[in-house]
């Protein structure tokens, strides 16, 4: 019924890969990436909160770059590769960032966690051994109201160590 109601403007075909899998969906041109990922693809790990690119809970990686998907038109991801929290673990094995967040107690309510981990992934891809100040700066676009941040910093440091080991004993 929804499709025959309001004249909602143009529709467009969106092709992208999400967590490595090709996706081809018809969307309303005005739809945000967050809504497409959550409502059409059923990947609900990314959340909506501030809706203004301040809080970071909707963070997704588009071609490896963290974006606030609540304010990114879905068609901007056309032809690109999107990564969500659901793509971090492979075959049931947690990603080192996920394991570090668990081990360091870096999550409480969990609402910010998917965005926080994806922002961490992007930060460490660019800067594999960040200082504490670089972590603070790199994650300043992701708010956590529960933890008081310290454990997240420890988790990012731990992630850096684990990724370095995984990549052959550090660079």
């Amino acid at each position: 019924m929804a499709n025959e109601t309001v004249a909602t403007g143009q529709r467009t075909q969106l092709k992208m890969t999400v967590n490595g899998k090709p996706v081809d969906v018809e969307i309303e041109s005005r739809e945000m990436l967050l809504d497409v990922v959550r409502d059409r693809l059923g990947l609900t790990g990314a959340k909506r909160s501030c809706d203004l690119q301040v809080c970071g809970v909707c963070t997704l990686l588009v071609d490896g770059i963290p974006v606030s998907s609540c304010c990114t038109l879905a068609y901007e991801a056309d032809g690109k590769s999107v990564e969500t929290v659901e793509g971090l673990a492979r075959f049931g094995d947690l990603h080192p960032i996920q394991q570090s967040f668990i081990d360091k107690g870096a999550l409480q309510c969990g609402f910010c966690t998917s965005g926080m981990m994806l922002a961490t992934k992007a930060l460490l891809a660019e800067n594999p051994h960040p200082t504490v100040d670089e972590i603070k700066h790199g994650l300043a676009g992701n708010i956590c109201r529960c933890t008081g941040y310290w454990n997240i910093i420890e988790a990012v440091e731990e992630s850096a160590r684990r990724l370095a080991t995984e990549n052959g004993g550090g660079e």
Partner: protein
Amino acid sequence: MTSNTESSYTTIGHDVPRVDARAKATGAVIYAGDMKLPGMLYGRILRSPYAHARIKRIDTKLAKALPGVHTVLIGEDVLDINPYYGHAIKDRPLIAIDKVRFVGEPVVAVAAESPAIADEALTLIDVDYEELPLAVTLDAALADGAPRLHITELLKSGLFHGLGEMKPQPGNVCYHHAFARGDSDDLFASADIVVEGDYIFPAIFQYAMEPHTLIAQWGANMDEIHIWSSCQHPFLVRAEIADLFGLPVGSVRISVPYLGGGFGSKSYTKMEPITTALARKAKRPVRIANSVDEAMVTTRRHGMKAWVRTAARSDGTLLAREVRAWFDTGAYADNGPRVVATGADAAPGPYRWQAVKVDAWGVYTNTSPAGSYRAFGATHLQWCGESQVDEIGRRCGLDAIQMREKNLLTPGEYVRPGGKPLDADLIGDIRLVAKNLGWDTPKPANVGRGVSVGLLAAGAHPVSTAFARMEADGHVTLYVSSTEVGQGARTVFSQIVAEELGMSVDHVKVIGGDTQITPYDRSTGASRSTTLAGLAVQRAARELRAQVLEIAARVFDLPETAFDIREGQVWHEGESKSFPELIRVHFGMVGGELMGRGEVRPEKGSGSYAEGPVFWEVCIGGIEIEVDRETGKLTIRKAASVADVGRALNPRMVEAQEMGGIMQGLGNAIYEEMIYDDTGQLINSTLFDYHIPTFEDLPDAFASTIVENEDGPGPYGAKGIGEGSLAGATAAVVTALADLGITINELPVTPERVWRAMNRTTD
């Protein structure tokens, strides 16, 4: 973080990882906004643009005609029921009736096939308002001849205020809480030192990152309701919904998914009545998900103004304190009366007074309603009283620690007559905070240090229950209604069961928050879950243990005292039987299960507010702060705290509560303030304009100590600490600034306020 005791427990006292960590780290955890029901409609709310106005006409014709719009709800649609609710005072219609009293009050609700259609429908609704005179501020609301928001004489008490007889109040006052003992007039007249001040505390947004989100679905016969809600107190919501819609409580089912934070913002009833009414008219399930700006006008922390004076002898002995405090509860009382009572209780501070006199009022204004936020009451008033204690110390040559060593109550002394005596070693705590802060080390230029200590009446009403079911495989399924709001309740409950039954935490599954399945729990708040629900869980597990031992006694033909339980086995002198084996013997086949029940209720009396609290939560903190003398900018060099927790069941999670609480305390002290203009518009209603502390606002260092004196009423001597560090940190920012000669009377301490205070001081 360090701890001062060793534990002999196998699970309790250990840093057991959160039982929900993996689900949260993989994005698999389901919050209310992740759910969809077949046939579900999307609800949106048209909110009032005026702070006080009469509704003359609502035209919804165009909205109803929009394809995809299913239902439009206005005040007239709920006149077949008594549509007023409020757990303290029934002052609030579930949707505006005739009048609006704040900017953001729901006027029309729309249910449509998609959120976009519902949004579009809102733009097609035309409402005519006739503006009424306003009372936006406390001063305006308290002035002679102020416009009245409610005819308070006609209001009825709600179901859960717990505050005894609530007398109707004049004007815009919704509640007055007062107590006095000793002759304070005489003491103030004869005291060597009197310090007096006026203080202002702002309205603050709790900012749970997940805004209020819920789905309501009526049964096919319209005689039962199922609500999935991001709520902290499902049983209290159930009772209010049953009362509103005239149903037995058993016909109202509240299911609580994981919550994306609460901090009090999801306590009591919030969006459930309007969503339920919309679903009733639609006869289809309806989801309403607040946006952040809607969450901001759904509930907030009370703004407050206060006058405080303190009398002392010239040797630093505190004599008497008087407090008058006015709490801005906005257009509806919500939890205002309780906030007022708790604030009044916290106002004297934990000192040995010869006389105190406290008056606190809850006041209606034409702003968004105020309710609970972590450490309410204590956060409001601790900074006022503590800065006066320090000022007296400065005048008589005692530092902040000496003043407190001299005057703090000691364990067993009465905080207030008729209530619970002090159950914490505050002098020991304040010495530890001083140590963590480096109290005796030299301070660089422009660096100040401050401490603060206070008490918060914690635990709310002491009623909690739990069921523990030992399945045929020997695992335990635990039914307990505490909301997992992020604090880690399910992990701690799993630890308690594991400890009592000598089993692995992995073999405990916690089912939580469904009023048709899990048993009654008063609420999740007031730092009560580990202490009270935890005690119910412990009792349920012990009942299971007794049943297991009884079966073992029969099987081995030995007395129940002859056994040891560990590693999921019942042992007697090197021989053992597993739980599944015993269950098989008991039932004679592979099925069957054991059921343990745990109940917590008032040990004496009714558990009323006056008889309480369940325990006094220690609100303590220390801050080292650096001030830029030219700009007034603050840098927090160190935050120190003490978690006086009785027994830390999970030290890492205790530490997490401390760190999170301190960060919110710094937000309350330095950054956060909801600002209303003269017309009652909230002018910083987005996170662009309302600053939540980020990574870049972290203190340079953090030091905390867990104190385990086993003096709490909870399991293993535990007591809650979810809130204390917030109030402690907020007040310590103020006392640290006073250490630099910067007197603060209004929060938050923005650079501008610091600069003005410095220049006032040096002029």
